[in-house]
């Protein structure tokens, strides 16, 4: 353990002693992959052949007209295999797992997208796979549980703590400290102990590198602002990575839940409610009380419902190289409805936070300005949550009829 992965005061590797050699091995596998041009090439051709990359950059002409401000482009991670940006990270880590000669992968999942992506990767590479998922998220995202199981993974509902993403992460670590000889933990976001924040960002940077190339081809110039939702921060880091050295404003949108003042949110960087802390193996802004006990977070989207945030984003927040906003559940539902009706595109509830953040600012921008929204995933997986949020009467009748059939 030499380079410990600090970004300003954030990051590090607060590991139990038992995991130190496992992380040493992972760091060295990642370092050698990073410096091997053949590895990146192998990764990119896998993503092209298996996952359909590059994903398109779609000009949203109708939304642009609707707001009458900046030109709006959408980076379509929803069209990535498994329907979200999660596959970028998972397939990359899968290649590393093969390199390290391990046979089993474990993962946490919130919304279930990372779990599905991981189960998909495990099926493709022939690994055993166990997915830890908070019991509350299992309830919210049953269809994803169904798919993970069909793909051959074992899904373990986590009933400890607040029964959401952070608890699933704790449980995955408990599995890992027991089985690290055979098992790799495919952490799904740019959080956790070093090298995960850097490694996940490295794989997800494929989003930003493509987006930059695509906008340059299309418009011959850089965008003015780019927007991404921020849960753990992997899709934001992916998009931002393409524009780090450019005069482009990077905007992260967190889950405002029922409103920042209500206390029911997951805004770690865009509210004053979070503070420095150490948990889950790294140092960042956590939503916690004065004793350092983690608080319950709230969001309409399971994928943004997390107490911590990428240490790289925490650092960018502090040195002001990125700006962080929040969008409430209600704003998110409106942004989602508008995007569906005007563009025929269904963003995931997570991604709809980025849309809501961009919609708020687009009208005030000039017509020759450009912004890119990262659509990190597709929304049809959220059909139950969205139908509830829209209070759709016909859907309720359908569910009741369907349930009655199962009873019969």
């Amino acid at each position, binding site marked *: 353990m030499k380079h410990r992965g600090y970004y300003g005061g954030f990051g590090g590797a*607060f590991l*139990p002693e*038992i995991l130190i050699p496992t992380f040493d091995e992972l760091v060295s596998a990642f370092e050698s992959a990073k410096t091997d041009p053949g590895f990146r090439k192998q990764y990119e051709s896998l993503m092209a052949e298996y996952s359909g990359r590059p994903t398109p950059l779609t000009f949203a002409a109708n939304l642009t007209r609707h707001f009458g401000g900046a030109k709006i482009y959408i980076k379509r991670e929803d069209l990535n295999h498994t329907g979200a940006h999660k596959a970028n990270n998972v397939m990359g880590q899968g290649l590393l797992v093969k390199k390290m000669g391990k046979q089993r992968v474990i993962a946490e999942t919130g919304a279930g997208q990372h779990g599905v992506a991981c189960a998909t990767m495990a099926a493709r590479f022939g690994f055993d796979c166990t997915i830890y998922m908070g019991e509350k998220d299992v309830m919210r995202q049953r269809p994803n549980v169904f798919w993970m199981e069909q793909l051959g993974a074992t899904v373990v509902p986590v009933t400890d703590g607040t029964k959401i993403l952070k608890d699933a992460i704790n449980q995955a670590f408990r599995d890992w400290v*027991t089985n690290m000889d055979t098992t790799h933990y495919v952490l799904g976001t740019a959080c956790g102990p070093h090298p995960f924040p850097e490694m996940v960002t490295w794989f997800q940077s494929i989003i930003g590198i493509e987006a930059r190339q695509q906008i340059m081809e299309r418009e011959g110039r850089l965008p003015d602002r780019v927007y991404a939702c921020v849960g753990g921060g992997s899709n934001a880091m992916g998009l931002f990575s393409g524009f780090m050295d450019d005069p482009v404003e990077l905007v992260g949108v967190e889950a405002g839940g029922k409103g920042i003042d209500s206390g029911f949110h997951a805004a770690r960087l865009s509210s004053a409610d979070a503070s420095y802390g150490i948990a889950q193996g790294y140092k960042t802004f956590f939503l916690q009380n004065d004793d350092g006990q983690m608080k319950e977070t709230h969001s309409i989207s399971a994928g943004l419902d997390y107490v911590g945030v990428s240490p790289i984003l925490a650092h960018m927040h502090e040195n002001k190289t990125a700006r962080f906003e929040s969008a409430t559940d209600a704003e998110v539902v409106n942004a989602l409805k508008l995007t569906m009706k005007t563009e025929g595109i269904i963003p995931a509830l997570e991604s709809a936070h980025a849309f809501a953040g961009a919609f708020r600012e687009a009208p005030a921008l000039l017509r020759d300005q450009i912004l890119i929204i990262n659509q990190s995933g597709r929304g049809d997986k959220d059909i139950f949550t969205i139908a509830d949020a829209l209070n759709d009467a016909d859907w309720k009748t359908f569910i009741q009829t369907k349930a009655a059939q199962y009873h019969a």
Partner: protein
Amino acid sequence: MLETYIRNRQKKKNLLLMTHIVMGYPSFDACHDIIDQMVAAGVDLMELQIPFSEPMADGPVILRANQTALERGATVVKCMAFAKEMAARYPIPFLFMTYANIPYKFGMAAFAKATADIHLTGAIVPDMPMEEGTEYIQAMQENLLSPIQMFSPSTSDVRMAQIASIASGFIYCLARKGVTGADTDFSDDLTQYLDRCRKAASVPLAVGFGIHDKADMDFLRGKADIAVIGSQTIRVAEDHGVNSVREFIQGLLPAA
């Protein structure tokens, strides 16, 4: 100081016993009763865990104890007050056990000073490896406290030597991979690992994770200096009541 106590105590018995409770679980009053019984039964030193919402290294028994203690209102201030009272009342050394975020939020220097002021002898913080612990270790040393370091079966000889060079009091040797509370295979592998630990370190060795009964204790005699029992006493108290703890502890020790 802590090491001196351990060496002196070893003149009377070769394998000491350290136990563990989660403060505030099932209640502070019950914790007091449990400690009273443990001390009466001959426990030599104790870990007092300040509960944390994300106890990553703990298995189901201690994990739930952490959660319940927090739900029932355990705070750092209440734990400090309780620990102070125990250290004043009982003649054995007490150490804090907790996770890095608790001393970090408290302030490393303030935490070390508070720990010394209430006469605890050190702390065990499993998610604070030596690379991340510079400030913490220094604060503890300045207050003449032992920031307990850990070995695991996967720790290399080279790293053991590095850890041993900053160790004081004793070194906590994890008997196996995994989290607290699961079974440990008391085998030749464990013997060989403890041999490696012994060669690397001059301070006493405590062995924990998966110690359940007298047979486990007998296995460790001569190979380690301190046996640590954590989850098992919590299980005994849960299954048979707080009053059964004394009998359980006495059953672990050689007949007097």
